[in-house]
């Protein structure tokens, strides 16, 4: 079987977000880059599917040239091929992103490469549009299940489970299908050194789609207002045990 995974390069934010002065971007001068945890799990799931059923896996990103780093990280984990849909760094909205991916998948099909499973994250870590997978599925007329946390493939079918507030939901879908993955579906492996070295040498297939206006335009970013707030330090002098237990009593937890 053949599996395609869509991953998006995003800044690895930590304790605090700082914006560029024009409010257009996250200030990434001191940040690394990564992908959403959901997408890390989608990559892992793709590698496991191929290990179990045989076939080939491909990773796809729409982003600046630097997103090659994220493609190589995926290849270091065992993904075979990588495709970069190269942009000039401008933000593409979900409609435009999905359209570019559909075009790429159709070009693949024309070249004789079809996919049984197309995987995405449930939502991207940065813009969190919650929709690229659904739009790709709709355009390709494929069944789609979002937010899956378990996947079993047998005889051209996928049985998937996802979590709800009160338990689980199950669906059985014929392949090919689009599945969007949530973190927790698996525990991603760490890349091995030989894996990294191999990935470094691999070729990246590139194309340059035309930017389009999908109809959702980012005007600016802003940080939410922080309510002023003080912290009380306990156990500075004296037994922290006693002071913490007093706090529990004050909060009526004991």
């Amino acid at each position, binding site marked *: 079987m053949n599996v395609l995974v869509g991953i998006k390069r995003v800044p690895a*934010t*930590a*304790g*605090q977000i700082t914006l560029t002065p024009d409010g257009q971007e996250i200030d990434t001068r001191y940040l690394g880059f990564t992908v*959403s945890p*959901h997408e890390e799990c989608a990559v892992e799931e793709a590698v496991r599917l191929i290990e179990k059923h045989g076939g080939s896996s491909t990773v796809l990103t729409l982003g600046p040239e630097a997103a090659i780093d994220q493609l190589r990280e995926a290849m270091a984990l065992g993904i075979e091929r990588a495709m970069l849909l190269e942009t000039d760094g401008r933000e593409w909205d*979900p*409609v435009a992103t999905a359209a570019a991916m559909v075009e790429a998948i159709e070009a693949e099909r024309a070249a004789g490469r079809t996919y049984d499973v197309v995987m995405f994250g449930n*939502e991207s*870590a*940065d*813009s*969190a*549009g*919650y929709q690229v997978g*659904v*739009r790709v599925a709709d355009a390709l007329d494929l*069944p*789609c299940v*979002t*937010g899956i946390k378990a996947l079993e493939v047998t005889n051209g079918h996928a049985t998937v489970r*996802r979590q709800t*507030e*009160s*338990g*689980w*939901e*199950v*669906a059985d*879908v014929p392949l090919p299908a689009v599945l969007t993955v949530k973190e*927790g579906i698996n*525990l991603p492996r760490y890349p091995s050194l030989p894996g990294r070295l191999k990935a470094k040498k691999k070729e990246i297939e590139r194309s340059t789609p035309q930017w389009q206006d*999908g*109809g*959702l*335009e*980012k*005007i*600016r970013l*802003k*940080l*939410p207002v922080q309510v002023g*707030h003080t*912290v*009380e330090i*306990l*156990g*500075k002098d*004296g037994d*922290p*045990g*006693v002071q*913490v*237990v*007093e*706090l*529990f009593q004050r*909060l009526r*937890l*004991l």
Partner: protein
Amino acid sequence: MLSLEVLTMAGRVALDIGRPLEAVAIGSQGAGAAGILSSYGVSTLHVADDPRLAEYAPVAWAHAIAELADQVNAEIVIGTASDRGGEVMAHVGARMQVPLAANCTEIAPGDPFIVIRQRWGGSLLEEAHIKARVKLLTLAPHALTAEASPSRTDVTTRAFTPALDDRDFRVRLVPQVEADTGKISLAQARVVVGGGRGVGSAEGFASLEELADLLGGAVGCSRAVTSLGWRPHSDQVDQTGTRIAPDLYIACGISGAIQHMVGCRAAKHILAINTDPAAPIVAQADYAVIGDVQKVLTAVNAEIKRVKAGAPSRTPA
């Protein structure tokens, strides 16, 4: 997917643009909601009439909504940003070939049509313009407080039969009932004891388990801990795991990354235990103990057991 917050927001927006507020009910829920809708200013309730819609089939539900939106010439369609709400609205957007703004907190209709929407789980906000014939959006939870309108409306209930074909039902999600484990769930616990990389090892969580037991709470963890394989993902508190709202969240050896804070910011109080006074969690906590998590928890657990055994308080004078 009846959300009073969505009704409140939709009512305000409808008033703003001078259009009636109409609601759609799909599936087995909804149809009996006319009473509630009346106090939120809804003029018409459209009930999708197709027995196949009784169970959740995202594409079919979405196509019913898209068809109705066209039928009534909707200018704006608002859904709730729940798992199902978000999924259905994404399909509506795909079917109608219009953009969708997910997780909005504010809506200013007009030209341009402006929304404020959440990124990074709400750690960052985006001002965006929606340019489309129909504006689709989902409302983030807790974006506003639900508020009934002062006067009640007469709700006309109207059945409509969407044109659905079998392909719209290719994906059906069937609920699976789980055995109750009897454990206090993270989402409901009054006290959550969360552990991060600073706990040091899987074994290090024993003291957190003990504290949670003593307080009748649950143990949670950060993503660093699940990635290390110390705890299962079901314990993870954050943007991608469980969001919690306890009376007290005790964050042990957790630095306070924004993604983690998204999961616990609904806690009434936060107590941080950390060796580093400059850790972001300390600035965001209400109480903090600066010290080694194992040492602090050993002292805390011993003191709780002493107090529970009826010993007099050791409060220094």
